[in-house]
């Protein structure tokens, strides 16, 4: 094989998924390394670090987001099978989940309404534009559901995806200290509340504490996803018309 000139080499790799893929993995591993190195400091959240590193690099080399995503979408795709995989811890804790069914269901309705309506209310109160307000409505719900709901209620799906991820990072960073403050120690209760408000990112962090917390977080995330998908568009159309 003949050696390629540098400029041509760049065009070749900028167009292949390899660049976006390896960049995402390296940035995430750097984030995980820092998180462990810092003694799991909340601000050293691996996802936050990875996003900042990648965005800075793309900006520095002038690569558009869409080009990066063409490669990174293979990692994005794994959100699907990961969601399906949550069935396994759910099944493992099924007996305990059933014992708590009534408190969980009441908590679900109260928490889901609080998360969605306080977000939209606060944004409205502090003068956000209507598209931003509606993009905030489903922000506690896992990415694919949230994007679908945003589209239905007049938000911007890609903005919602970003708000969802920011919410997840916040929830994952904050919940250990927050529950210490509230003196709530039960792993099942904590997990359910974390998954309900901070979806998959909260769930991933909950699994680091215990498998029980992770399983309840998966349940909270799944139930709030379904509830928000069904009820939020309906309630908003009733309120606004």
């Amino acid at each position: 094989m003949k050696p390629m000139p540098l400029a041509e080499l760049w065009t070749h790799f900028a167009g292949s998924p390899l660049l976006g893929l390896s960049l995402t993995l390296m940035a995430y591993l750097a984030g995980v390394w820092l998180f462990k190195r810092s003694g799991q400091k909340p601000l050293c959240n691996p996802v936050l670090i990875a996003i900042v590193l990648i965005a800075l690099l793309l900006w520095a080399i002038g690569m558009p987001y869409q080009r990066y995503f063409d490669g990174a979408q293979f990692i994005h795709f794994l959100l699907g099978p990961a969601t399906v995989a949550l069935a396994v811890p759910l099944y493992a804790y099924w007996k305990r989940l059933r014992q708590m069914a009534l408190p969980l269901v009441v908590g679900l309705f109260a928490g889901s309404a609080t998360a969605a309506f306080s977000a939209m209310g606060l944004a409205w109160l502090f003068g956000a534009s209507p598209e931003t307000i509606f993009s905030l409505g489903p922000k506690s719900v896992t990415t694919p559901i949230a994007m679908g709901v945003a589209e239905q209620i007049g938000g911007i799906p890609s903005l919602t995806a970003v708000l969802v991820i920011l919410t997840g990072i916040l929830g994952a960073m904050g919940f250990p200290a927050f529950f210490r403050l509230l003196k709530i120690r039960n792993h099942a209760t904590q997990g359910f509340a974390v998954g309900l408000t901070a979806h998959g990112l909260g769930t991933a962090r909950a699994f680091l504490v215990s498998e029980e917390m992770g399983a309840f977080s998966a349940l909270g995330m799944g139930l709030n996803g379904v509830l928000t998908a069904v009820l939020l568009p309906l309630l908003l159309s009733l309120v606004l018309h």
Partner: protein
Amino acid sequence: MLNTLTLLLLFQLGGELSVRLLGLPIPGPVIGMTLLFLTLLARGHVSQDTRADTGSFLQHMSLFFVPAGVGVMVHLQRVASEWLPITLALVISTFAGMAVTAWVITAMLPKGDDHAPGEHA
């Protein structure tokens, strides 16, 4: 690992198919999760391998959010010009939702069930 990945993808496919066929307002993977859960419930057990594989897969779930998160680049201008309402809405509503959920559950749980694991005798 390969068995587990195939299993997960097949259930996701089943979920996507049912969503399209029935016109459900819920994403395919969530239906796939429900279908897999019902299957496990019907079978009454889950293999050690599947449990270990899904465990290590889920450990890195946060990685899968990174590509969509980098999309913040595209919305930087809006986020910068509306940073105050967005920040307040995100921070307050996330922790308000968390607190309300946890308080309701704690209030409704029988006394004595409110322990951290391993704390009771």
